[in-house]
């Protein structure tokens, strides 16, 4: 089964950089792989959620007696089944959470705050009984005025979601509550002085719509709780340890009572880093005494699971005639949804990160409104701010007479640049991606009629975090590798390759699995582009631990000091003066003596992975616009990004392509449409338009490798950066094609056609 295609012949590596078939591939293409909804248990019930039809209402009462009386209904839970939680912010991946809000998002308490907010849930013997039971639950609502738009939500007099929300970060603290949860500000230098030196200043206001992660697999789980309170949960998630923490907290159970197993996951993109169904399924399972399975419909996914923020962003950039940026300023207003915690902070930090600047100021606002609470979505916050900044950069570049690439090269962050958000960059690949773009044939290919070309760069931090991995040497010399970060994009292949590289064993001698929460120490979730970086680091450490133990056992057998033995080319051998004294022992041989030399050999690594390094990207997009209908589509696309080192290039390329595809959807058609009644009108893939395969060209990729010195193989995270440049790349291409600068996403046909009409009216349209 093993396909081994060396990318770079003569490379120092045996496995790193090759493209073997992924270990989870066969199960996925044959249908054996079990995703969230594929697990079934004897006696299982179907759990369904009753959701609010109102965007904002006070819950006066909930009467579930008629539902409970329906034959086949085994349990109903409401707000009364979850204890209230104190207000306290704790870091959760790339976002912060507050359990006071989490418990209210899982099950509404005093008020419903968005169309689709859960109000009650039932467990019944069939789906149709569960659905009918939902209709029998009587909820008495006092409907309240609602607010959807972020700018309207910030106005004095806007309907208030939380009576006690006093804007944080403002001195002196406001006396009255508002929908603005927080104001942040940071920067460096003197922006006003900087703008005085500028020959060119461009200032624009942008708006973006909330967009959904659009994972193909809806949220799904199955929970079982025994009479003595031992709970099992199988779930499609990006982090089962996190799910365990949240559920234990919300239900008031001991962490050790809950064992969580991560099913195969059909996409997450950040959206499966929070809990929705899981605590509800556990509560229903405990109440009914039966396993409870819950699967969201697509409509529920759209109405009630996290999109990322829509936003309102002002960006102002000044540059000298010679192309050097002298000042940059941004103001970001991000929708958080019903509860505070939008990714405005990372958005603010990303905004100008690709550039070496002296004078920067960024102000951000976190604003609540009657929409589902946002969840992480690939580089949370980054794409929005970077869309605005990269659009303005494009205009400033044009005014200085430089190409987009040359202008960015002139201002690019390099090793040693102090980023506006604080740190000094180590080795980074921003310049390398720009140079690769400039050298790419795409950049020089002539455009056809009605086409334009756009370029944009992007940045994401990437994170490390708590990680545990174990690697057991089996009795026949094969190895079992257990990691704890769910595999979303080829992780198991990459971990296997790193272990095989360390041990110099054939890839198929290692079987890798994602362990459950009972099998390993704590693992933070798969997010922040951390899993290949962190679990890879732990895998290398675990493999080195196996090597160390193997050497020790052989030394023991040979009666040599430990340091007189080395591990080379897949075998333990006497080293130095003792070289050749004993025949080398393969791992199989070592496994054979494990029992009598001290028992099983198991490598283990538990660490907090430090040294995550940012990844920069530059994308080039060619877009064609139909002058009569306003339809814009991407005809050619190239994504260039620094991977540090690509362990498995195909999965790195897959990340670049996937990020580009999602970003193109964000740019062109994706948006939430709310009616005047505050209800979501397009909760499905028919009218929430993610690109389909035929909408996209083949997305070309270039992997740039500027190794991360803090990782044994030089890995940077690659999963999030690729969604940062596409919106600006596409908008810049549309500007090139039409002569019109679009500041409002998506660039849907009605919007483009209207702007074309207006521009023709004043002679500004190029087509």
């Amino acid at each position, binding site marked *: 089964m093993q396909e081994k295609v060396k990318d770079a012949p003569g490379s120092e590596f045996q496995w790193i950089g090759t493209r073997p078939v992924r270990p989870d591939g066969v199960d996925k293409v044959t249908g054996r792989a079990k995703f969230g909804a594929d697990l079934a248990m004897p006696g299982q019930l179907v759990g369904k959620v009753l959701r609010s039809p109102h965007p904002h209402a006070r819950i006066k009462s909930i009467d579930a007696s008629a539902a409970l009386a329906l034959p086949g209904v085994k349990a109903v839970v409401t707000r009364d089944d979850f204890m209230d939680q104190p207000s306290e912010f704790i870091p959760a991946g790339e976002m912060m959470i507050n359990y006071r809000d989490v418990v209210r998002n899982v099950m509404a308490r005093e008020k419903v705050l968005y169309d689709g907010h859960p109000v009650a849930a039932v467990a019944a013997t069939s789906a149709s009984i569960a659905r009918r039971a939902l*209709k*029998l639950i009587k909820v008495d609502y006092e409907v309240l005025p609602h607010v959807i738009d972020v700018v309207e939500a910030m106005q004095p007099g806007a309907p208030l979601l939380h009576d006690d929300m006093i804007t944080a970060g403002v001195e002196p603290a406001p006396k009255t509550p508002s929908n603005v949860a927080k104001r942040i500000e940071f920067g460096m230098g003197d922006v006003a002085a900087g703008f005085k030196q500028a020959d060119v200043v461009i200032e624009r206001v942008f708006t973006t719509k909330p967009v959904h992660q659009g994972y193909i697999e809806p949220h799904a789980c199955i929970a079982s709780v025994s009479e003595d309170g031992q709970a099992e949960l199988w779930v499609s998630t990006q982090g089962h340890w996190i799910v365990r923490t949240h559920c234990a907290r919300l239900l008031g159970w001991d962490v050790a009572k809950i064992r969580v197993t991560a099913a195969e996951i059909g996409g997450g993109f950040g959206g499966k880093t929070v809990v929705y169904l899981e605590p509800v399924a556990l509560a229903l399972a405990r109440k009914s005494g039966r396993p409870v399975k819950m699967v969201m419909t697509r409509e529920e996914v759209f109405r009630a699971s996290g999109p990322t923020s829509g936003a309102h962003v002002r960006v102002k950039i000044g540059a000298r005639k010679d192309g050097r940026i002298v000042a940059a300023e941004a103001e970001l207003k991000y929708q958080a949804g019903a509860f505070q915690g939008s990714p405005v902070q990372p958005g603010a930090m990303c905004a100008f990160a690709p550039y070496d600047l002296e004078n920067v100021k960024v102000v951000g606002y976190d604003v609540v409104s009657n929409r589902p609470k946002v969840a992480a979505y690939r580089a949370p916050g980054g794409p929005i701010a970077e869309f605005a900044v990269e659009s303005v950069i494009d205009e400033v570049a044009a005014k200085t007479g430089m190409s987009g690439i040359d202008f960015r090269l002139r201002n690019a962050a390099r090793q040693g640049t102090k980023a506006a958000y604080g740190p000094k960059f180590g080795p980074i690949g921003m310049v390398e991606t720009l140079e690769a773009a400039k050298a790419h044939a795409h950049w020089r290919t002539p455009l056809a009629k009605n086409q334009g070309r756009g370029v944009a760069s992007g940045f994401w931090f990437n994170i490390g975090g708590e990680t545990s991995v174990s690697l057991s040497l089996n009795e026949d010399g094969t190895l079992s590798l257990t990691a704890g970060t769910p595999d979303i994009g080829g992780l198991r292949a990459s971990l296997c390759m790193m272990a095989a590289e360390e041990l110099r064993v054939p890839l198929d001698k290692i079987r890798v699995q994602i362990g459950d929460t009972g099998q390993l120490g704590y693992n933070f979730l798969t997010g922040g582009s951390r899993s290949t970086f962190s679990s890879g680091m732990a895998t290398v450490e675990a493999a080195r631990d196996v090597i160390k133990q193997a050497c020790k056992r052989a030394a023991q057998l040979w009666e040599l000091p430990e340091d007189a033995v080395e591990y080379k080319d897949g075998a333990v051998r006497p080293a130095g003066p003792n070289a050749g004294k004993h025949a080398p022992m393969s791992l199989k041989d070592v496994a054979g003596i494990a029992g009598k030399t001290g028992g099983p050999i198991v490598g283990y690594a538990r660490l907090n992975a430090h040294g995550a390094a940012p990844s920069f990207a530059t994308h080039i997009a060619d877009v064609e616009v139909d002058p009569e*209908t306003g339809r814009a589509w991407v005809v050619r696309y190239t994504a260039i990004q620094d991977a540090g080192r690509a362990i498995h290039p195909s999965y790195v390329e897959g990340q670049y392509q996937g990020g580009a595809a999602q970003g193109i959807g964000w740019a*062109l058609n994706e948006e939430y449409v709310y009616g005047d009644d505050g209800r979501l009108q397009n909760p499905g893939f028919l*009218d929430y338009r993610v690109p389909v395969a035929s909408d996209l060209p083949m997305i070309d990729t270039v992997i740039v490798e500027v190794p991360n010195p803090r990782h044994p193989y030089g890995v940077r995270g690659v999963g999030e950066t690729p969604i940062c440049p596409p919106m600006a790349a596409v908008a810049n291409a549309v500007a090139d094609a039409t002569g019109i600068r679009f500041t409002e996403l998506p660039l849907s*046909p009605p919007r483009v056609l209207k702007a074309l009409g207006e521009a023709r009216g004043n002679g500004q349209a190029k087509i």
Partner: protein
Amino acid sequence: MLNLRQINKEACDMRYEAPSSIDQAVALLASASGEARVLAGGTDLLVQIKTDLVEPTLLVDIKGIAELREIGEEAGAFRIGAAVTGAELKENPRLKAVWPGVVEAANLIGSTQIQGRATMGGNLCNASPAADSVPALIAAGAKVAIVGPGGRREAPVEDIVIGPRRLSLTKGEIVASFLLPAKAPRTADAYLRFIPRTEMDIAVVGCGVCLTLDGQGTCTAARVALGAVAERPLMVAAAGAALVGSKVDGAALATLDAAARAACRPIDDKRGTKEFRVEVAGVLARRAAQIALERARKG
């Protein structure tokens, strides 16, 4: 609000019947006490049931009725059974050659998988203003044969849908077949729709055009129909008239564009704004007319 008794009743009461003749189907539908529905491909109906939009108590599956599954050619005219799928139309080389616009319209529906289920009868009787095959059928001058408790009758396709989810059929009536008339020489049709993506989308505007040329290339007859720009698919006589007597040149196309726009009475919704639909209706009418013109010139 539904009460418990009603709900319990519904739970056990969805009846499924698969008759083998039209008469049996009509009898079942006519005698049903609750909400009865014809089930063809189910690509609309099953979705509506799953999302609680409709809660029928009787489903009458018509796919087992042989007569409704056939395509027949009678003296240059085609009779297409109401339960024939889009994929089956495409596999009929004669039909594809004679009525390319109709066949293309039916095969814009959904995806390959959907086209294998979706029927022409279902597309019409779902009564969506945006149904793709309907403007193409109207432009082609198609008629439907309707069978009901009162017997058989015929009506032009444009008379069937009277509003969103509303048909001119009476209780117990089903659409049995479509009749595409024998074509005059140098007659050809075309259908275009506008969607923001390339597939898996619902028409924001749809336009069917069928025109006839004389030996000199002058248009002697033209029918133009629009979808998704009003509460039902529209037959736009003025748009057809704009082409008649012309060589389908720039001036005639401009008149056609204006007439198509004038006929629109769309709404603003999640799929597009009023002004967008009106403007694009004119664009598609011109473009579809040009395709039909090319085809008519070829024979």
